[in-house]
């Protein structure tokens, strides 16, 4: 530790830290633009000049390491004069268009100019003008004359995003910030450059010119999308969500947001929101009031249970719903005598249910995962499933984490990968078994699983070596693994690898409240799983926040099951085409932003939030709807007055941490690899839930482009396809014509074609066999 003095205050600072960091540690503010604690030091704005005793001239605080005995003055005449001088230079070319600038009122340049600049500029000459750039549908770069060339945006894309999508071209007075010619900025976390830009050069395209920053009220919330549980500041005006910003939480989202978290709010204000209860009779939809609609639901449920028994009813819920909603949904179902309830519509393998000993979760905190020396990620398209966690892992992989991958496609992760094993879904179990066999060979001991037929590949050996060498190793299973028809076997093998190698293991919870859904028991437990409810169709379905054509493992089968049912009761925030087609009652419920509730993130952290706006139209929080339904069905224990009361009842069942457990009490796996042509059907990054599916700016991005068939070389050649031509895809009796693209990143026998899209909704299961021919 070094002893230094800042503005007369004595303090100690660690060797290697900068004057800026030392100043921050004691709450002393030094004006700055290019410095950002999460980015590399560029020291190119010079705003942070301070006086250091014995130094001949002012030094930039962000790039000056502290030395023992250093005496720093941030407000001396020399420092102030230097800061005012830099400010004058920065403003030479900066337009004086604050009144029409979207950043006005929350602009660092504005604030620092007031605090540290002079009243007027001596510059009388012409200012330069820089043409606007097209960075895509999320980030506006219309007014690049405002740029002060701090290069934060450039460094963000390169260092945090993993690929430099923005650069500074030309030199000196001609410098311009731009994406490569003809390209847009396509990162899944691109919106952060809006927060980073200290001026109004990069602004939010969906938000710009809609309000002024000071007109907004700021409310805390939690992202409803992936399992990370990013903390949000939701900004509201006139009961409408106007934009979403990150709420810094170093242990979860740091100071970032994924674009999905940031821009999905547009879906909350979508025209497709359901605003009144609706009932279908005489083949037509009729708006109605809550009383009539709920009476209709009660009649429907009682009718089906009287005619066909309680078992003829199935509840499909969503892991994007709040803990309170999921708790009440399962409480209502079970109190009514229905045990067919599941949140896992996207899964296909439920064989491990009987051996479950607790709620599935990450198996550690997010911070612990990122700190592990060796990590194996099985079956995850990390960047689209978990954009921010992926960025955290990217940083860790730079700092020495050995990142190992077993996956069904050789995705560009933009991070350092130590070893990877790419296998078709039909060989995925075998791939994981190879690692287990290699681990057994290294560590000794015995696996209870039969590995005799497994041949260990060099990549599997490298992965096993890495897991066994790392002093802390963790294994996580992604959404592809969780949706996979052999998930129970993947989980069993992972458990064995972990047991023998000493690694920890868990799952990358795909949704904001997967862990919550697990904990409250919103999964089969004594009844049918989501898969069984579709495979043996029920007479009636209750859908909570679920659109089976998008959320189901097999969309064709899910829709068929809905269509054959005598009644489908949907609690939904949107009137989607599918629901209008097959449902009989639509009850408008509030999305996360309009209700109190909580999500439990992948690390088992319960984060409660309040509604940030009032529900739109007649929509009501789902917990209230379920409470009233419980009462109308004369069930006991539905006397709740608030979401908090629901929460305390569900939390009274035991400490969350005690109930998290990934281990199965018995395991089995068939490790033989199979051959054949199989689909890799993943949920695209902006199709994960109804809110982002209704967010127009996200849907306009390159990541949400219309699905195409990406095809492995062997399948492509066997079908005699040509690049870009239409291929005829057949699955489960349905056919579809889509453009075919040869994809070298796919293992043999694989056709990658997204699910959760209207274009592919007629097709079957995510990882089922598929046929492809010239079309």
């Amino acid at each position: 530790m070094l002893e230094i003095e800042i503005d007369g205050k004595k303090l100690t600072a660690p060797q290697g830290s900068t004057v800026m960091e030392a100043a921050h540690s004691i709450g002393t503010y030094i004006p700055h633009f290019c410095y950002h604690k999460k980015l590399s030091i560029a020291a190119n704005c010079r705003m942070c000049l301070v006086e250091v005793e014995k130094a001949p001239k002012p030094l930039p605080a962000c790039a000056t390491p502290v030395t023992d005995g250093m005496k720093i003055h941030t407000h001396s005449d020399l420092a102030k004069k230097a800061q005012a001088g830099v400010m004058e230079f920065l403003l030479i070319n900066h337009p004086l268009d604050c009144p029409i600038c979207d950043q006005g009122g929350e602009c660092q340049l504005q604030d620092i100019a007031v605090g540290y600049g002079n009243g007027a500029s001596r510059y009388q000459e012409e200012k330069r003008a820089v043409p606007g750039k097209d960075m895509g549908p999320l980030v506006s770069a219309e007014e690049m004359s405002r740029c002060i060339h701090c290069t934060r945006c450039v460094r963000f894309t390169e260092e945090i995003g993993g690929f430099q999508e923005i650069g500074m071209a030309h030199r000196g007075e001609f410098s311009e910030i731009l994406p490569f010619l003809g390209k847009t900025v396509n990162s899944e976390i691109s919106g952060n450059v809006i927060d980073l830009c200290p001026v109004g050069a990069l602004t939010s395209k969906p938000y710009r010119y809609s309000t002024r920053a000071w007109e907004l009220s700021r409310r805390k919330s939690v992202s409803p999308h992936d399992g990370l549980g990013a903390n949000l500041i939701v900004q509201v005006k006139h009961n409408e969500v106007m934009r979403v910003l990150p709420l810094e939480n170093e242990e979860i989202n740091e100071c970032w947001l994924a674009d999905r978290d940031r821009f999905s709010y547009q879906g909350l204000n979508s025209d497709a929101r359901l605003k009144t209860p609706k009932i279908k009779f005489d083949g037509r939809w009729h708006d109605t009031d809550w009383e009539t609609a709920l009476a209709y639901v009660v009649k429907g449920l009682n009718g089906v249970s009287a005619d066909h028994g309680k078992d003829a009813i199935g509840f499909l819920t969503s892991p994007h719903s709040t803990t309170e909603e999921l708790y009440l949904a399962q409480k209502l179902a079970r109190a009514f005598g229905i045990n067919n309830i599941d949140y896992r519509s996207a899964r296909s393998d439920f064989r491990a249910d009987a051996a479950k000993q607790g709620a599935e979760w990450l198996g550690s905190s997010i911070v612990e995962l990122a700190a592990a020396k060796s990590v194996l990620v099985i079956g995850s398209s990390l960047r689209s499933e978990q954009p921010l966690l992926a960025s955290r892992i990217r940083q860790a992989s730079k700092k020495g984490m050995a990142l190992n991958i077993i996956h069904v496609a050789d995705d560009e992760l933009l991070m350092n990968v130590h070893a990877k094993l790419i296998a078709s879904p039909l060989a995925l179990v075998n791939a994981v078994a190879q690692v287990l066999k290699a681990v057994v060979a290294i560590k000794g001991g015995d696996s209870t699983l039969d590995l005799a037929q497994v041949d260990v590949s060099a990549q599997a050996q490298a992965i096993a070596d890495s897991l066994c060498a790392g002093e802390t190793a963790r294994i996580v299973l992604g959404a592809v693994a969780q949706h996979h028809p052999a998930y129970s076997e993947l989980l069993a093998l992972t458990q064995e690898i972990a047991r023998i190698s000493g690694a920890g293991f868990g799952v990358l919870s795909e949704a904001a409240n997967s862990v919550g859904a697990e904990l409250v028991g919103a999964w089969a437990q004594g009844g049918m799983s989501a898969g069984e409810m579709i495979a043996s169709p029920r007479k009636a379905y209750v859908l909570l926040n679920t659109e089976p054509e998008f959320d189901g493992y097999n969309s064709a089968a899910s829709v068929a099951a809905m269509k054959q049912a005598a009644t489908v009761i949907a609690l939904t925030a949107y009137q989607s085409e599918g629901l209008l087609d097959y449902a009989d009652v639509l009850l408008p419920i509030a999305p996360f932003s309009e209700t109190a509730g909580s999500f439990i993130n992948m690390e088992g952290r319960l984060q409660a939030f309040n509604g940030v706006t009032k529900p739109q139209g007649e929509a009501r929080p789902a917990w209230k709807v379920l409470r009233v339904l419980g009462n109308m069905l004369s069930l006991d224990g539905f006397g709740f007055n608030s979401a908090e009361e629901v929460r305390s009842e569900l939390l009274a069942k035991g400490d969350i941490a005690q109930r998290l457990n990934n281990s199965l009490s018995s395991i089995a796996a068939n490790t033989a690899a199979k051959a054949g042509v199989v689909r890799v059907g993943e949920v695209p990054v902006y199709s994960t839930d109804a809110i982002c599916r209704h967010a127009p700016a996200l849907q306009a991005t390159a990541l949400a482009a219309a699905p195409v068939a990406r095809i492995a070389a062997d399948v492509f050649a066997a079908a005699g396809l040509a690049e870009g031509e239409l291929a005829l895809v057949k699955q489960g009796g349905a056919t579809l014509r889509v453009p075919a693209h040869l994809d070298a990143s796919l293992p043999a026998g694989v056709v990658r074609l997204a699910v959760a899209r209207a274009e592919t909704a007629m097709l079957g299961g995510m990882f089922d066999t598929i046929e492809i021919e010239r079309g």
Partner: protein
Amino acid sequence: MLSAESLASIDREVAKYPADQKRSAVMAALRIALTERREQGQTPEARCLTPEVIEYVANYLEIAPVAAYEVATFYNMYDMKPVGKYKITVCTNLPCALSGGVSAAKYLSEKLGIAIGETTADGKYTLLEGECMGACGDAPVLLVNNHKMCSHMSPAAIDQKLAELE
């Protein structure tokens, strides 16, 4: 997009740096790409660096295209605009200007019938002004195609040089 020889020269440059530091060779790689285009190109448009060439070089070095574009636009010697077969850059900085640099530029401009910054209609010559080339003692000085330095360029020497370039 680039010839086997050019790629081999780029490989030699890449080999000078650690394996994970390929981007260090970006300046050399762009120079090699530009030289090939100048020698092979039949029109002014085909003699300069285009976004496609820059992207190709970037992909070859496994860096982001915009990172190579930053370098290509930073340095004057990378021709980003159509350029004649012979690019003549005359130094007009102060020391040269005091010893005939400006008149050399004027003489060339009159002789070629183009203003500074222009290319002759036949696509043969481009005339540019340059900054100090570190050879002030030999003024007037000019550069032909970035690589060939010519000193003491009196009108007679210029005539002779142009004749050589015919």
